[in-house]
């Protein structure tokens, strides 16, 4: 489980790894808020996420909604694995950053 936020010139880079669930939700929220506050495009590397539960999903979803409202780009540089996307779809959760 790792959540790392790096600032590049044009974007905030958020790298997520491992299990993203309620045990790291507070940390994820803080990282997303920080990224939003930077006012730059948000890029998320999520290729190494092994599990994504509702607590993490709703944070990412809310972040995406707010980024869109403030005209910030919200995109995945590494998409969630097909397995996780499949599970999200089974649960009726719409894909994140669908337009990317």
């Amino acid at each position: 489980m790792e959540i790392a936020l790096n600032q590049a010139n044009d974007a905030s880079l958020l790298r997520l790894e491992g299990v993203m669930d309620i045990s790291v939700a507070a940390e994820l929220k803080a990282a997303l808020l920080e990224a939003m506050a930077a006012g730059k495009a948000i890029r998320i590397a999520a290729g190494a996420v092994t599990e994504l539960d509702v607590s993490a999903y709703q944070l990412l979803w809310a972040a995406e909604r707010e980024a869109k409202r403030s005209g910030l780009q919200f995109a995945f540089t590494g998409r969630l694995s097909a397995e996780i996307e499949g599970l999200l779809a089974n649960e009726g959760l719409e894909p994140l950053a669908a337009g990317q």
Partner: protein
Amino acid sequence: MKEAVAGNAEQFKHAFREEAREILTELESALLALHENRGDKELIGRIFRGLHTIKGSGSMFGFERMAAFTHDLETAYDHVRNGRLEIGSELIDLTLAALDQISAMLEEGAEGVAPADPAVCAGILAGVRKLASIEEETKPAEKSQPAPEPPAAAAGPIENWRIRFAPGPDLMRFGAKPSLLVNELGQLGELAARAILDAVPPLGEIDPERCYVRWEMELATAAGAEAIRDVFIFVEDTCELTIEPAAGAAPVLEETRPASEAEITARALAEKRNATPGRRTYDTPDNASSLRVPAAKLDLFVNLVGELVTVQARLSEIAAKHDDPEIAAVSEEVERLTSSLRDNSMNIRMMPIRATFEKFRRLVHDLARDLGKNVELTIEGADTELDKTVIDQLSDPLMHLIRNSMDHGIEPAALRAARGKRPTATIHLAAKHSGASVLIVVSDDGGGINAEAVRNRAIERGLVAAGAELTEAEIFALLFQPGFSTAKQITDVSGRGVGMDVVRQRVDSLRGSINVASKAAEGTTVTLRLPLTLAIIDGLLVSIGDAFFVLPLANVLECVELTGADVERANGKHIADVRGEIVPYIRLREHFGIRTPRPEIEQIMIASTEGGRYGFVVDKVLGNCQTVIKNLGRFYRHVKVVSGATILGDGTVALVLDPERVAHDAVRAIAHGVRAGPSVAAIAAAVKRGLRGRSAAPQRTV
């Protein structure tokens, strides 16, 4: 943060354990009932659903081993449900043995619980797999995300259901994952889920541990509403859940795919279930109808109410001294409220005895098999409610009584046949209210107790004198003597006493009494009379000299005066004429060796006891009192005539008398020509001294 989550997860595990224990008990009853009635589809369905829930929820709450172990059992019962496997004694016995192991896995780590035995588990699984022709799978339930299974519950026609599921705010905090529930629903059939996120607040306002997502789902399944609700069984108290047949029920999903052969078979075999669609929401009274509260919290609550009752008594007394209508009004109001609070708090602790009774079906089943006897257990009055503390302590004595009945009461089949009895023997467990007591009856239609043999044995053991004349009841009472229980297999009654002194001790500690009735060749009935509650009673406060006593109001029938003239008329005999009826009385002053001068007019409290009506003579009757009973502590536990002590409003200690015991002791003292000597008085005084010393401190220390 993580620690908090872990703590909550533990709390949720605890709740799961409690639910699972109930499910295991239900499973056991269902299995034993199935033993009698092999074809009962409803029972098979219940067993399957129970196992399914244990498996599914077990893996959700971290009991992976338990879930994995239950997997094949569930499959076996699925086969039974679908008519692919016939239910037989072997599968039932294996399942019962498996339940023991599941229970051990559930309680793992708890003190005094033997861990599940891997070898036994493996043996059970091998047996089940062989019976049900299941091939060993590779740890199916140990994956963190359960792999989708074929529709597990295909027992009825495929129906469409609309399910709305809104997790409660704390669901995730408790360690439950809503997505797992959605996935589990998917295993019941074709699921179309839609997550609704309109309640998700702006990022900054999100509580990361709260679930804001809710779901609307359509499910096409043959499983029925009950199976759907079972998926949510552990979270339904904390979520909004609506399960209803899809309106206009055009079976859209069913048409889109051909029914599989298994489903067709399943439908053909399907039981006609009348499952009514479930609807659970926060605002329905149904949802709020029960609440799980740890027993310790309840005990604390009752203790506090007890303290309040004591303080209220003091307030009433102070108010009586001050002639102030305002204080009097407040005091009366407090008294009324306290009384109502007391009754309510006692009521909260009342539980039906059903679970305790049902538990013995298994004991009877196993013992009958081991002893090669044919015995059925019948239960009556299982809804009778009594105090949880009493129920908790009833298990052991009942077990000993049933064991004794099975072992020594019920005759071997040949003897039953010779006596012209039904080949199947009966053990009957019954509970009913009787005044402020509950009667628990264990009876059997066995050979009865040989009173003469018991008497001889008692003489042999030196428990009674050789020439003593004993009534039948007195002889049977000997069975409960500690000396009797050590009997080895010597006579046909030996062993009858095994564990019986345990019964006696436990019933004594509950302030109950035991009565045994038995007829040779017809059977034995043991009746336990137990108080409804242990903590607070209504009593009559009386005084003798400067000593105070409380007699439980439930026993007291009336109070009459005893004058010097009455005593003279009776020629010194301890009998009173109450409206033409002769009532023997016991002078408590003499009984307890209280040496203060006797008043001219005394009071007789007439009380009903098992031995008949007795009068208890005291100096003064002071009035009603609500009494919080405090235990005497282990030093005075042997003082049987006193069942506890209480603190009066002014801090004085009063001893709570057990009229049954006092009468019993007094009659014995007269029969044996001894007077209740100063030793009783000394003990009573010591009890009082002990309590006084402690009551100087704040009241709750007593």
